[in-house]
C-alpha cells in the first residue's frame, strides 16, 4: 500500500507536467483562431453594443443617446412588419425544404443505381452562388417572359405585395432542400439496416418504417438542421436583397434588409446596430433553449 502510494507520488509530477504541456500545446493551436475571433467577432460585437446606444450615422463621431434606438425599434411599424416577415420566413423555410429534403433523402436511400449522380443533381442549386441563382430566378419570375408567362400565367410574383415574400422564399427553399437531402441521406445511411429488417419482420410498412426507424435514427441531425434553419432565418438577406430589396413597399422586408437600409442608405448605423443586437438576443435565446433541451437529453431520446 505504502509502495503504491509512493509510486503514485513519484508518477504524479510527471503526469501533471504532461497534462500542463498538453494544455499549453492545445492553447497554442487554439490561439490563432481565438485571437481572430476576438478581433473579428468579439471586438465588433462590443463596438456594436456601444454604437447601438448612440446616434451614429455610420461615419464620424457618435453621440450617446441611451436606449432611444431600442425604444424606437419597439415602436417602429417597419420593424414589426420585418419581424413578422421573419416569422413567416421561418415557418416556410423551416418546413418546406425540410419536408422535401427528408422525402428526397428517403427516396435516394432506396435507389441503388445512379445514387451519386442524383445526389450531385440535388446538390447543384446549393453550390451555385446565391447572386447567380437570384439573378436567374428574377428573370424566370418575370410576368412578361418568365416560366409562368410561358404557361399563360402572367402573375407578377415579385411585384405583388401578397406574393413577393413567398416567391423569394420558394427560390431559397429550392436552393436549400438539396443540401438537406444530402445531409439527411448521410444520416440515414448510418442507421443499422437490421432495424429495418426487424421492423419488416414485425409487419411494418414503408411509412411505418420511416416514422419508427428512420426519423428516430436521424433525430440528432434533424435537431441540428432545425437549429441551423432558425439561424438562417434570422440571417436571411442575400436572396431578398437581390430579388426584391425588401419591396415592393416593404412586403418582403426582413430585419436584416431593414438593418442594411438603415445603416447604408439612411445613415442610421446606430439604429441598425440596435436592430442587429436585438436579433442577436433572439438568436441567443433560441440557442439557450436548444442547449437546455440537449442537456435534458432531448436530442438523444
Amino acid at each position, binding site marked *: 500500500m505504502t509502495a503504491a502510494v509512493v509510486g503514485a507520488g513519484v508518477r504524479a509530477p510527471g503526469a501533471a507536467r504532461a497534462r500542463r504541456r498538453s494544455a499549453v500545446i492545445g492553447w497554442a493551436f487554439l490561439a490563432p483562431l481565438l485571437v481572430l475571433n476576438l*478581433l*473579428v*467577432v468579439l*471586438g*465588433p*460585437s462590443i*463596438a*456594436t453594443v*456601444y*454604437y447601438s446606444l448612440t446616434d*451614429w*450615422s*455610420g*461615419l*464620424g463621431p457618435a453621440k450617446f443617446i441611451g436606449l432611444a434606438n431600442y425604444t424606437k425599434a419597439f415602436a417602429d411599424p417597419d420593424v414589426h412588419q420585418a419581424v413578422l416577415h421573419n416569422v413567416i420566413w421561418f415557418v416556410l423555410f423551416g418546413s418546406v425544404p425540410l419536408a422535401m429534403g427528408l422525402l428526397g433523402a428517403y427516396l435516394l436511400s432506396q435507389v441503388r443505381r445512379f445514387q451519386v449522380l442524383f445526389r450531385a443533381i440535388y446538390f447543384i442549386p446549393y453550390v451555385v452562388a446565391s447572386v447567380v441563382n437570384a439573378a436567374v430566378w*428574377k*428573370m424566370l*419570375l*418575370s*410576368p*412578361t*417572359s418568365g416560366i409562368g408567362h410561358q404557361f399563360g400565367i402572367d402573375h*407578377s*410574383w*415579385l*411585384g*405583388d*405585395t401578397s406574393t413577393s415574400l413567398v416567391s423569394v422564399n420558394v427560390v431559397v427553399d429550392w436552393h436549400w432542400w438539396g443540401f438537406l437531402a444530402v445531409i439527411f441521406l448521410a444520416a440515414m445511411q448510418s442507421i443499422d439496416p437490421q432495424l429495418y429488417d426487424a421492423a419488416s419482420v414485425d409487419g411494418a410498412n414503408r411509412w411505418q418504417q420511416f416514422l419508427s426507424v428512420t426519423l428516430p435514427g436521424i433525430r440528432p441531425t434533424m435537431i*441540428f438542421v432545425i*437549429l*441551423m434553419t432558425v*439561424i438562417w432565418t*434570422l*440571417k436571411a438577406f442575400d436572396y431578398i436583397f437581390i430579388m426584391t*430589396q425588401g*419591396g*415592393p*413597399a*416593404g412586403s418582403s422586408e426582413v430585419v436584416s434588409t431593414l*438593418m442594411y*437600409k438603415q*445603416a*447604408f*442608405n*439612411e*445613415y442610421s448605423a446606430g439604429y*441598425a*446596430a440596435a*436592430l*442587429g*443586437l436585438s*436579433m*442577436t438576443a433572439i*438568436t*441567443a435565446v433560441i*440557442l439557450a433553449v*436548444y*442547449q437546455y433541451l*440537449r442537456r435534458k437529453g432531448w*436530442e438523444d431520446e
Partner: protein
Amino acid sequence: MTAPSLGRRRFLTGAGLSAAAIAAPGILTACGGSDDSAGSGNGKVDLWLDIQGDANQKYFNEQVAALFEKANPSVDLNTTYYKGDDLRRLVQTALQARSGPDVVRGPAATQTLAWSKAHALADLTPYADKYGWKDKLSGWAMKAFTTDDKLYALPMRVDTMMLYFNKTLFASKGWKQPENRADLEALAAEAHGQGIIPFGSSNVDWKAAGEWLMTVFWNHYSGPDALHQALSGEIKFTDPVFVEAVELVQTYFDKGWLAGGVDKYFAVPSQEIGANFGKGKVAMIPQGVWFMSQVGQYFGAKAKNANEWDWMPIPALRDEVKYPLYELGIGGSFGINAASKNKDAAATFLNWYYGDRAAALQRMADVPATYNIPIDFADTDIPKKIDPRSARVLTSLNKAVSTGDYGYVTWTWWPPKTDVYVYEGLEQVLTKKIKAADYCKELDRLFTSEKADGTIPALPAQGPAK
C-alpha cells in the same frame, strides 16, 4: 462534445455577424489615426470606380489613367473597379476606417455632404485656389459641393432626365414628339390601345428608380419654381401642386401607361424592358442622361432589329411649366480622402481630369454622357466627331443653364433621408398603402428635419446660371 462547441461557435457567429458588418469600421477607426499629410505629390494614387463593362473600363484605363500617367510620370494611378452600389458601401466603410482610396468617388451631392460633415473628406479649397478650379468648373455645380465656404468634392457628371423613344416606331406610326401633357397622354392612350407600353420603367435592378419618376413629375408638373420654393423652405411639400404630381404618377400606372402597371414595374427586369424598347413593344422610356451609354445595345444589328432610338425633352405636364425644361443635377463626385497620405498627388489627378478642357470635351464626345463633367464651354467647342444625340444633350443643357430653364433632380438637391423616402415612400403610394397626400406629408416632415440639420446643398439661384 462536438455539438456544444459548435453551438457556441454558431452563437458567436450569429451574435457577431451583424456586429461585424456594422461595427468593424469603428474598430478599424480606433486602430487607424488621423493623418493630415499631403504627401510629396508623387507616388501611388488609389482610385475606386464603378465603371462597368470591359469596353468602358478599357476606355478609362487607356484614355484617362494612361494619359494622366503619361502627363504625370511621377504619379501612378491605381484604379480598382466595383459594382455601383457595392462601391458606395465599401468606400463609406473604408472612410470610417480612415483607409480606402486616395481619390474618393462619392455618391450624389447630399450623400457626399454627409461624408464631408463626418470629416471623412479633405477640404479641397486650397487646391481649388491653387489650380483655379472655380474658373474651370460651372459655378452652380461647384456651389452644390461647397459648405461653410469649403469645397469638399468636385461634381462628377451633369445629370438630367430625358424621354428616350423608339424613333423607328414613331416614324412607322406617324407619331410626333409630344411637347405638352395633352399630346403626351393622347400618344400614350393610342400606344396602349395598340398593345404597346407607352412608358417603360422598372425598379427591379435599381430600387431608387422611383426617384427618377418623381423627379420628372415634380419638375414637369409642379415646376421648378415650386420646387425651388419648397427646397428653400418657403412652401411645404404638402402643397397641392406636389400632391397632384404624385397622383398623376399613380394615374399613369393605373392606366397601364407606365411600365404596363405597378406590378410589372416591380417585377420586370430593366434588361427586358430595354429589349422590348428596341423591338418597339415599348414606345418611350423616361430615363436619366446616363442611359445614353446603354440604350444603344437594344437597337440595331447587335439586338437583331433594324430600329433606331432618339431622345426628346420631357413634355410639360402643366401649362404653367416651361418647355423644354431640363432638371439639373450631379451624378456623383470626386473628393480626396481625409486620411490619404498622398493628397497632393490625388489633387494632381483631379486637376488633370478637370483642368484639360479639350481632353474633357473629347471624352464627352467619345462616350455618351458618362464623362459629362460640369465645365463651361461653347457649343462650337464640342468635337465634331460626336453622336449628334449626345451633342444635343450638351447643347440643350448649355442653353437651359444660360436661360434658366432648368429644374432640380432629387438625388442632388434633396437631403439624404428625404431622398431615400422619395422612392421608398412612392412604393407605398403605388401599392395603395398610403395616399399621395400622406406621402407628401411625411416627405415634408423629413425634409424639414434634415434642412434644420443643414444636410442640404446650396441650390442654384433661379434664372440664368453659370
